[in-house]
């Protein structure tokens, strides 16, 4: 059917390989789709299960301190503080810790760097540094129900 080089609307003769028919467009889409499906299947069912561990729910880490914080606002301190200006990378440990704590503890508003509010949430990547943060900011520990996540108040 395609061997004769059918004339186009303009009337000029064109070689068969240059004719764009709906069958050829369908075949091209099908080929692109097979490539896309192959990539999807490989990534989701082979590569990701091997290399990307299943994430734990964010709430799991922060659920134990929820009963110790009141509504409104709380200060937020960390050994890896979040970035507050223009950034070159959002996925830093400090940003991740802050944003995950904010997500879990909403509607409590966490104010980064603030240590004089009546309640201060401390969220550290290295639990051994909790004492150092308490001393530096002159805070008293209220509770540390999970290693690295604590509530404190000003002395």
């Amino acid at each position: 059917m395609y061997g004769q080089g059918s004339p186009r609307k303009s009337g000029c003769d064109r070689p068969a390989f240059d004719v764009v028919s709906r069958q050829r467009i369908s075949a091209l889409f099908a080929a692109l789709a097979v490539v896309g499906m192959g990539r999807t299947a490989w990534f989701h069912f082979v590569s990701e299960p091997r290399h990307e561990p299943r994430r734990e729910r964010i709430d799991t880490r922060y659920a134990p301190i929820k009963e110790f914080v009141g509504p409104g606002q709380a200060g937020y301190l960390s050994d890896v503080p979040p970035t507050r200006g223009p950034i070159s990378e959002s996925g830093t440990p400090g940003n991740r810790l802050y944003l995950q704590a904010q997500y879990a503890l909403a509607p409590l508003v966490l104010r980064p760097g603030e240590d004089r509010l009546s309640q201060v949430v401390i969220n550290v990547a290295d639990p051994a540094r909790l004492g150092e943060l308490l001393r530096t900011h002159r805070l008293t520990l209220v509770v540390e129900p999970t290693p690295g996540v604590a509530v404190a108040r000003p002395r």
Partner: protein
Amino acid sequence: MSLLAIVLCGAGLVATGFPARAGSMPGLLFRATAAMALGIGVSSAWFATRLMASGRPPGRADQAVLCAAGATLWLFFRRKAASDPHPRDPAPAWLWSLFAVACAIAAAAFVEHTLRFPDGGWDAWMIWNLRARFLVRGADYRAAFSRDLLYMAHQDYPWLLPGVVAQGFSSAGEMPLVPGLVAALFGILALAIVVSRLSACEGTRWGILGGLALVAMPCFPIFASNQQADVPVSVYLALASALIAATSSRELWLAGFAAGLGMWTKNEGSLYAAALLGAFLLRRRDPRGAMTFVLGALPFAALLLWFKVTLAPPNDLSAFSTSASILGHAIDPRRWLELLLLVLRRIVYFQDFGLWLVAAAVATIVLARRRLLTLPALALLFAFAAFGPIYVLQPHHLDWLFRTSADRLLVQMWPAALVASIPALRSYASPSIESASAKG
């Protein structure tokens, strides 16, 4: 009750927006899909309006009003003349089979990704579901937009998606399943709009091809399952792109309405609405039609303005910019060159796009040279061009911002690009071969 309000509102809007009856099953499916997308959007916008006006979420009385308004519109506008006959270009069985396999793989990938990342993508818990939690948990909804939060929570973003999720939480309880189901629904709507619109206007073959191009795009199931606002805004952009190509003023009004819902979904929605309007004026030179489009978008533009003026803190792109930084970036040729290289690299980014973007780039060049670009395709090119200066002039590290946002912008525009370009591709296909094969 809230589901009924969504269905009735959507049905009323669609009855109002289409001057003729659906002439085919795909046409009917397109209207049903549009009704669902519009109903969800209206319900969320009403939720926001009520909160901002009174500080309280909508109650049963509000839902009854929405139900009554939708039912009234439907009753008033349901009688219509018959529409044009449905173009017959059936899809062969092998194409249906391939499409079914592609849908199955995408659905399985959606489930796998949702189980692996139970809180969704980074932006889902940093922005969208965080906002939904604030809206549903807080005594004062304004805390969701507090300037004391880190700016990365993007308190200035419009909140159609958080509104939908918060309403889901209110109805079903704060279950982790709710944002996942909302994400799945918007993914299905995006696919259904592409398939049904192209099937209704061009024939089933072209609808299935459009569906394949969406569902077999490797990053589509990932973005759908990420619970972010990119797929929802793609739904409204695709709907607006499909409707703005129509000639009746009622469809133009509905196109504006859909574009307005896109504005209430993401900041980029305003750019897309402006691009659609600009392309319409350039191509049609019809100020009355343009006004009709603007009238459709007006309620949501007003809602967005109200939110931006009264509640939203400044956007980080403007807050961290100074006149000196903007000028410095504008005249820095290295920054423009860096952007160009990043764009070129992204087109061949196989992991996310397979080979679809390479094919799309070639098709765009071919169609543009033959002056076959449709009105919505022109609008998408305007939007694409407008993102260039935004990337260059913004204050963050260009490579980081591009890396974390370019794929999302492409996913936002991809369903609309299919709706816009496949009709042109069909008209490019050799008519003589088509008629020969139709006889065969």
